[in-house]
């Protein structure tokens, strides 16, 4: 046996997962409250004690951790045109596992500077202009950021012609120059900025947040939790050199405050009648819906569903009562369903969370009639050919109706413009190990892939 410990320091819970990398099996999981205020090791030790109660004493060969504690990795970015470089900056930050506090486009103002100071980002991403293109905005924005009172590092990934000048304007602050996130019009190049962000997260943010005390015990905090999740999904889709993955997929992580969606899929137009518009999206794409969550953002779900009536219809609970229950949950965010009626409400909420988050993540199409006949104009990713949906998050893994909930993320004939998967196998992360497997993937991808394939349970739901 070669036990390895994988730790996820979450904002609320510290989750531990033990695996045996020799037999490629999951040994057990446990969770305890995160103790960032006092000593982060207290929570970890509590969780470990709970784990070892189940598994017996384990002599770990390695311990790896990811973290979204202490607010996670909070970023602000500024770009030029909202749909172009500002969007590229957003994709870069999300893909690096960041929480986005704000995205600015065009020229930053004095008011914006005050807002940035109030938001206190961990990292600022400064972009704008294609290489050889506009320099005025990024230069102005570098000057404005230089007047911020709070201390944060700045990653410069815009028009290369302006990079050095931006650095000079930002003297006294830690700055890093990367390749442009959009070097040519419509060309996304977010990996260099992402690896710089990750390097900064490891070297600087972990320490600033008091997470480094944990590192005596463990081999290090390797990445923000969303990055681990993304890594797990990419490994599951692609497989390793030796073994194939399960192919293109869509993954939904419905949490209490936010819903994260990942797609590992090409998503480009499939026929000659379709014209693609807008910035091409990354093959590994992450979106975060800050207003969609089962408790803290419960009102956002209702709003996105177009009001309580839809929740009422889906749950079978009369509208007025459903509204009262929703209001109650928004106040009592730690409550889990205690009887059948509460379960029905959570079912409706989770279904709407999946539908909304999948709709926002997926691309859309529009019919247009031209002299040459009917054509389709596509923006964003076409996920209709995707055949696998992975689901995780408390409300989806602790219910029997997971497949039924997840089916709301599928293509809806009543809404044919939304390019969601036509039909899909639903795989459930019942043992809640995906982030841990993303961490393990860094060292033993083959083992992580095998454990995921074993532990993700197909849901038998049929339409």
């Amino acid at each position, binding site marked *: 046996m070669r036990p390895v410990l994988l730790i996820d320091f979450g904002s609320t819970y510290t989750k531990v997962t033990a695996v045996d990398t020799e037999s490629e099996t999951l040994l057990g999981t446990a969770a305890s409250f995160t103790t960032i205020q006092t000593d982060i090791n207290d929570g970890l030790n509590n969780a470990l004690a709970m784990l070892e109660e189940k598994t017996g004493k384990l002599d770990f060969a390695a311990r790896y951790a990811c973290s979204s504690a202490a607010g996670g990795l909070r970023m602000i970015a500024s770009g*030029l*045109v909202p*749909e*172009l*470089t500002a969007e590229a900056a957003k994709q870069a930050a999300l893909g690096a596992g960041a929480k986005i506090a704000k995205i600015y486009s065009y020229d930053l103002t004095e008011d914006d500077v005050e807002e940035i100071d109030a938001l206190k980002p961990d990292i600022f991403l400064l972009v*704008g*202009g*294609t290489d*050889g*293109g*506009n*320099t005025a905005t990024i230069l102005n924005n570098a000057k404005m950021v230089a007047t911020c009172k709070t201390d944060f590092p700045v990653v410069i990934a815009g028009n290369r012609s302006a990079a050095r000048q931006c650095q000079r304007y930002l003297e006294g602050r830690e700055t890093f120059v990367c390749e442009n996130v*959009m070097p*040519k*019009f*419509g060309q996304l190049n977010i990996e260099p900025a992402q690896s710089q962000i990750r390097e900064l997260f490891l070297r600087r943010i972990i320490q600033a947040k008091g997470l480094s005390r944990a590192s005596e015990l463990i081999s290090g905090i390797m990445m923000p939790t969303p990055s681990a999740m993304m890594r797990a999904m990419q490994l599951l889709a692609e497989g390793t050199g030796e073994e194939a993955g399960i192919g293109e997929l869509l993954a939904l992580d419905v949490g209490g405050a936010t819903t994260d969606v990942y797609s590992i899929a090409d998503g480009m137009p499939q026929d000659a009648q379709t*014209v693609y*518009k807008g910035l091409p999206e990354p093959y590994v794409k992450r979106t975060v819906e800050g207003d969609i969550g089962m408790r803290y953002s419960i009102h956002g779900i209702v709003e996105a569903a177009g009001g309580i009536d839809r929740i009422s219809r889906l749950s079978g609970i009369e509208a007025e009562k459903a509204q009262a229950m929703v209001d109650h949950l928004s106040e009592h965010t730690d409550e889990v369903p205690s009887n059948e009626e509460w379960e029905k409400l959570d079912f409706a909420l989770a279904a709407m969370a999946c539908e909304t988050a999948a709709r926002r993540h997926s691309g859309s199409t529009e019919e*247009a*009639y*031209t*002299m*040459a006949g009917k*054509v389709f*104009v596509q923006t964003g990713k076409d996920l209709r050919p995707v055949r696998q949906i992975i689901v995780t998050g408390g409300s989806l893994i602790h219910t029997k109706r997971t497949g039924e909930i997840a089916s709301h993320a599928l293509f809806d004939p009543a809404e044919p413009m939304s390019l969601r998967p036509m039909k899909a196998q639903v795989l459930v992360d019942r043992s809640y190990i995906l982030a841990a497997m993303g961490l393990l993937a860094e060292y033993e991808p083959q083992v992580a892939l095998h454990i995921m394939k074993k532990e993700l349970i197909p849901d038998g739901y049929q339409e």
Partner: protein
Amino acid sequence: MEKKKLVIGVIGADVHAVGIQILYHAFSDAGFDVTNLGVMVSQEEYIAAAIETKADAIVISSLYGQGELDCRGMREKCDEAGLKGILLYVGGNIVIGKQDFNEVEKRFKAMGFDRAFGPGTAPETTIAALKEDLGVEA
């Protein structure tokens, strides 16, 4: 000297994809840095691309006869977006039917276009005009 930058594309609900490719190659070969937006391009897309790339000119193609409607307000939108004075060209079958092209040209110039080119214009003609207007030595 730095290459002059162009943004090109076919405006409106027009899907004539071949001509714009030919123009892309012709303009690139003539020494311009060309951003080709392809077909079915909206006014906003030309403008957004011109801002990010700091383009010197926007060259609009239209082959399906609806160009006059599609191009209306383009100059005003450029002004609004801070692209004051950017060179604006339009060319192709920009109006319906056999109209006197001098009249057509007048109307497009009144809309703020620097030049308008009629059906059958060779790329070389446009290239020569671009070089002249952008002060590129031949």
